[in-house]
């Protein structure tokens, strides 16, 4: 919101004045309106390891984050470039693996990636698109540059909060919207449905699209239900589907009905107990066979996890150069791969200064925050890294940019990141802005909802 000099950044001026004129009581009242809206609508997420009453609201901060048009356009170009490269990478990896034979990525990195699915080598996916929906986490460094922190190319979640946040803001601050030209986000579900219809098997013009959820106990069930409702498609659990003669059907009161496209919010491992984890009760026996025969399309496709492995992440700028012959528009955060001997030496010597992440965890789990860690924690990570160097990366601690948040009864700076949602169908579509997550605990750099994070509305200006 502020320049280094302490001046208000120009696009925040009006908001700053408006908030300055408001009393704490007035602000608190607005906040109550918003909180009640979330609670009664059941905009909640589930906290595991708790008994009854496990649904909480995702804390919402009323001060919007504002992104000027030019700044956003650069982000948009960078994300488009990135998802294009990632899809080319996945196609290559599941076919000739030229990027490996040309020496850009070591073969072992691919082979050992947990989410790499060698059984799908040579398999062609509809329209050659692997990642249809991607959530890429961005942060801004001290100079205001956007850096990519990670890609979420399997089942990124959170988009429903973004849409609900906007609804809440319109209710609470209608006047601000008439003052600022804020680009709308409401078309997301229409665009998503277009993407899902686009990848229907055999170009079927009227495909039956469903959303496959693990069920009501999943932490993101609200979102699954929200998206299905907004797209007007059926939300199904594994038990609603059955595979017959290599095709997928859903069980309805009028008999079996063919399913063409599945927007699945279940990880690869649980999709089909005949192929992956045999103890999965969430999936559908025979689903992978139907998929292989081209009778049903999945979004995202199976095996995209090799692209969002944190070690693969290190190579994305190289992919962009390799496949597109372009310089990356959005750089990565500086990253050390403990897989490389020299990097590992540096990482082990500087554990107290770095953030160490294991390659396949998400949600803020499996992480070492060096400066705040105890010597026991560092020792545990040292042993883990030496035992399995492939599985760890390290990054310098980035001071995430801060944005004012309303805390109890006053405003304080809190660290934020940004997760834009990228759709890849007939064209690349990026919903303006994204989900801005806030580390609401003072001084915290962790924005995950499971770790005390909240969110705020994100405005991309159209002027």
């Amino acid at each position: 919101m502020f320049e280094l000099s302490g001046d208000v950044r120009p696009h925040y001026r009006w908001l700053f004045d408006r908030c300055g004129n408001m009393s704490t009581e007035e602000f608190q009242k607005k906040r109550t309106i918003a909180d009640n809206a979330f609670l009664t609508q059941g905009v909640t997420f589930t906290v595991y390891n708790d008994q009854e009453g496990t649904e909480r609201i995702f804390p919402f901060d009323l001060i919007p984050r504002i992104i000027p048009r030019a700044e956003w356009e650069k982000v948009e170009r960078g994300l488009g470039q990135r998802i294009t490269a990632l899809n080319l990478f996945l196609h290559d990896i599941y076919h000739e693996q030229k990027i490996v034979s040309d020496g850009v990525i070591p073969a072992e990195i691919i082979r050992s990636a947990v989410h790499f699915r060698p059984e799908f080598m040579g398999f062609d996916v509809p329209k050659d698109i692997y990642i249809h929906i991607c959530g890429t986490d961005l942060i801004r460094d001290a100079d205001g540059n956007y850096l990519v922190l990670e890609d979420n190319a399997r089942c990124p979640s959170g988009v429903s909060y973004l849409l609900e946040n906007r609804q809440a803001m319109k209710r609470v601050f209608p006047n601000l919207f008439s003052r600022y030209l804020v680009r709308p986000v409401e078309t997301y579900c229409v665009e998503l449905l277009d993407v899902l219809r686009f990848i229907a098997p055999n170009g079927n013009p009227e495909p039956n699209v469903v959303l496959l959820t693990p069920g009501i106990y999943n932490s993101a069930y609200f979102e699954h239900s929200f998206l299905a409702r907004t797209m007007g498609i059926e939300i199904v659990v594994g038990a609603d589907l059955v595979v017959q003669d290599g095709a997928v059907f859903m069980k309805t009161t009028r008999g079996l009905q063919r399913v063409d496209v599945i927007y699945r919010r279940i990880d690869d491992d649980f999709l089909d107990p005949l192929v992956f984890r045999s103890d999965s009760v969430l999936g559908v026996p025979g689903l992978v066979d139907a998929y292989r025969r081209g009778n049903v399309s999945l979004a995202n496709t199976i095996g995209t996890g090799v692209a969002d492995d944190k070690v693969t992440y290190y190579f994305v700028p190289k992919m962009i150069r390799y496949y597109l012959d372009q310089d990356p528009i959005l750089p990565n955060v500086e990253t050390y791969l403990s897989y490389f001997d020299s990097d590992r030496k540096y990482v082990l010597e500087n554990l107290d200064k770095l953030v160490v992440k294991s390659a396949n965890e998400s949600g803020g789990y499996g992480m070492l925050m060096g400066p705040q860690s105890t010597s026991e924690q560092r020792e545990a990570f040292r042993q883990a890294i030496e035992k399995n160097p492939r599985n760890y990366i390290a990054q310098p601690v980035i001071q995430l940019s801060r944005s004012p948040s309303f805390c109890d009864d006053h405003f304080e700076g809190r660290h934020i990141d940004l997760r834009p949602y990228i759709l890849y169908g007939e064209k690349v579509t990026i919903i303006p802005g994204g989900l801005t997550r806030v580390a609401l605990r003072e001084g915290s750099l962790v924005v995950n909802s499971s770790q005390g994070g909240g969110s705020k509305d994100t405005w991309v200006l159209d002027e």
Partner: protein
Amino acid sequence: MLSRVADALYWLSRYTERAENNARMMDVNLQLMLDAQLLNTRTQQHWESIIYTLEDTELFKKHYPEITGDAVVDFVTFQRKNPNSVYSCLAFARENARTVREQISIEMWEQINRMYLFFLTGDAKRLFHSSTYEFYKWTLEASQLFQGICEATMAHEEGWEFIQIGKFLERADRTSRILDIKYHILLPSGEQVGGNVDTVQWMAVLRSCSALEPYRKHYRGQVMPWKVAEFLVKNQTFPRSILFCVDSVDHSLHKITGVDRGDFQYNVEPERLSGKLLADLCYVTIDEIFELGLHEYLDRIQLRLIEISKAILKEFCEWLENEDEEGAQLQKQSQ
């Protein structure tokens, strides 16, 4: 519509209806007991008959040393280990609602959630202890509000018809059980059939079905056992009579299948069963019922309602792995 969704809507509706009926039954009988003290009846035997008609005697005995008014009221109202208690029914109803949130209106969800939270937070028990009357009033009105919201906010399409079927099948079953309570209550020695105590007990039966005033309007006279039975079994316009409920089930079934009702047609097994039961109820006379024995007659009705319920689940939800209707639900809850 998905079979699982139809199943969940059906059970959501059955469980809310069951919660309401059980609450009303407790409310009425608690009030009746106030009179019973005066009339010097054996109260324990009265509560026994309630547990007996609910077919929960064994479960009850597992959790309570003896049958007392307090124990029965707790068992039927608050006991989570009793799957048919008001609290359990609301919890199951809410759980079913949660799995089909995108199918029901937001208002329906909010109301079912509110009812469940009332019990979960302990507000229900606090209100019960400060005023039993207020507590049952709240519970009954909350359920009625839910049904009104459902009527007014949900599109009257296939899913809504499944909600109707669940509600009316449950209600028919409960009405038959409430009527049957009287069979198990013996009159104190020295009391006459048609005497004071007998009449008070029959009035309690009517009140348990919200039927006392409609009954009076209909017969304009004394509360007579055979008339009460006739009213609750065969009345065509009272919405809690067994005939009315079965008629509604039959109507909804034909809405779902699209088969014309007018020509006695049926397409699927549940329609055949509901049509057959409906015809029996229409053409049976109250003398025939009493000749057979009211208890035996109600027993048969209950079995036929279960038969219809099973046929519906088999016809429309054959894909779901239901062994029997109650068992499958319990499995669902414990996952």
